[in-house]
């Protein structure tokens, strides 16, 4: 996997020629400028796609909830109500912005900004495909956990700065819930780092394979449990039901964003939906094989050798397949997250803390010990490889 999208492009002759041409025209070495432009355009693209995903997320949420509750859901704006999120966006722009008189205006303005910065910064390491990853930082997942906790700060600041009792309660609950569930999530991610031998998403995905038995979720019995611990922790980190206590509408009006109106509220909602997507992507990359495609179709060698396509086209077909694989897994998890929201009732605040500290954290610690010993005892092999050795190679699993 290439260290960044820029390095991926650099392997193509056409890209290097273009840099040479631009350098000639401008009269100086343009490779630095081109690097910046590549990153800027790619980041802009990712942000736009993510905004679209966030918007369609609100649509999907309402459509799926309507399905579950035997209703129609949005069906007026555009075909099947698909453009509903644009109408909502326009509505939010037109709404009056109200500042509560007693609020701390600086912090009140800062909170949605922090939420959005935290969420957008996590997009930098999300592995869409082996080439189209903005940057494959060597501290990838560590960076992601650190940056995404900015959202927790934003939730707390949003609740605190409004100086309204509902907001304050929501903000406090949100802060304690987000930091509590960070513990099991960090420990389960740590156990995947142990197996893959690196903190970057590149090393996470490249050590898995295209088939389910090569994924980390089926690597050994402990990782199977770890996936569910991660998924539950992820629901709580993103304030999704059944852990949506910070914004519980039936008891706290709207929780930490009670006093937010118009576009500021919209930005909070956007950040929330993108964060769900990002964490689903992390779950897919860490446990479900990420962008891997069966039969190594992803590296595009087959298209070049068997079909005789030029290298640049063959490789990029492979990239598209990888992106499809990643998005399929991520959107499936996204669907499950929405499904869970409309199926389970909300739990109480003391139950939230009990689930985290008395169940998930001990289970995650147990898993960590188990995976440490597993990697040590079997040299990092998966259960299928170990079984095939035991059976004298009768089962043809493994890499």
């Amino acid at each position: 996997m290439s260290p960044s999208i820029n390095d991926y492009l650099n392997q193509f002759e056409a890209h290097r020629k273009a840099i040479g041409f631009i350098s000639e025209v401008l009269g100086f070495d343009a490779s630095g400028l081109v690097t910046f432009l590549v990153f800027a355009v790619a980041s802009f693209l990712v942000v736009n796609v993510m905004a679209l995903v966030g918007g369609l997320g609100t649509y999907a949420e309402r459509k799926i909830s309507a399905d579950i509750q035997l209703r129609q859901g949005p069906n007026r704006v555009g075909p099947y109500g698909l453009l509903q999120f644009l109408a909502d966006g326009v509505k939010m722009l037109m709404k009056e912005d109200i500042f509560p008189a007693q609020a701390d205006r600086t912090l009140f303005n800062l909170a949605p900004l922090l939420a959005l910065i935290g969420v957008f910064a996590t997009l930098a390491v999300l592995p869409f495909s082996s080439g189209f990853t903005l940057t494959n930082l060597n501290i990838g997942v560590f960076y992601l956990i650190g940056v995404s906790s900015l959202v927790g700060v934003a939730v707390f600041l949003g609740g605190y700065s409004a100086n309204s009792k509902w907001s304050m309660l929501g903000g406090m609950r949100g802060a304690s819930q987000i930091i509590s569930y960070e513990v099991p999530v960090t420990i389960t991610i740590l156990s995947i780092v142990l197996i893959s031998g690196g903190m970057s998403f590149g090393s996470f995905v490249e050590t898995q394979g295209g088939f389910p038995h090569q994924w980390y979720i089926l690597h050994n019995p402990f990782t199977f449990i770890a996936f569910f611990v991660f998924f539950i922790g992820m629901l709580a980190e993103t304030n999704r039901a059944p852990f949506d206590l910070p914004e519980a509408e039936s008891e706290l009006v709207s929780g930490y964003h009670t006093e937010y109106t118009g576009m500021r509220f919209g930005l909070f909602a956007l950040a929330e939906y993108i964060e769900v997507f990002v964490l689903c992507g992390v779950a897919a990359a860490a446990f479900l094989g990420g962008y891997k495609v069966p039969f190594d179709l992803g590296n595009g060698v087959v298209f070049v050798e068997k079909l005789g396509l030029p290298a640049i086209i063959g490789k990029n077909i492979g990239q598209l397949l990888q992106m499809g694989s990643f998005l399929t897994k991520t959107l499936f998890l996204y669907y499950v997250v929405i499904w869970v929201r409309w199926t389970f009732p909300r739990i109480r605040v003391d139950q939230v803390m009990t689930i985290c500290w008395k169940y998930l954290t001990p289970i995650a610690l147990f898993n960590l010990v188990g995976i440490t010993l597993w990697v040590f005892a079997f040299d990092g092999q998966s259960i299928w490889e170990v079984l095939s050795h035991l059976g004298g190679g009768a089962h043809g699993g493994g890499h």
Partner: protein
Amino acid sequence: MTSYTLDVYMPVIILMALAVGLVVVAVFVAQVLRPFKPSALKEQAYECGEDPVGTAWSNFNVRFYVVSLVFIVFDVEGALMFPVAAIFRKFVAIGEGAVLVGSLLVFISVLVFGIIYCWSKGDLDWVRSFQLSEDQVNQLKGIEEKA
């Protein structure tokens, strides 16, 4: 993997700048389009139609404070274990895995003892019972009788 330069951190800065840009543009566009008719009633804190009483910035349940203290212990330990975990496979491959298994187990046992301690202290219960034991009740009764 090739050598790392700070180039790879460029998207992080760009994405953060895009987030700031999005907020500024969205809020500015909204400012142009939206109506602006403030009134004292609108700017009241929402308390379901009642006039708000007092401020929300007041004393708060101490449970939140305890949870954040417990969290700090776990988070720092987790952060310290990441580098060890990242090189674990390489050490196992050259047959030196036992050293790292030992150090990881020491770290994990600190966490396990931490959680057992918090649990036995009752710091993991959100709702703590303050019911007195029989001895304590009798003791208090004794004090009362003396008085």
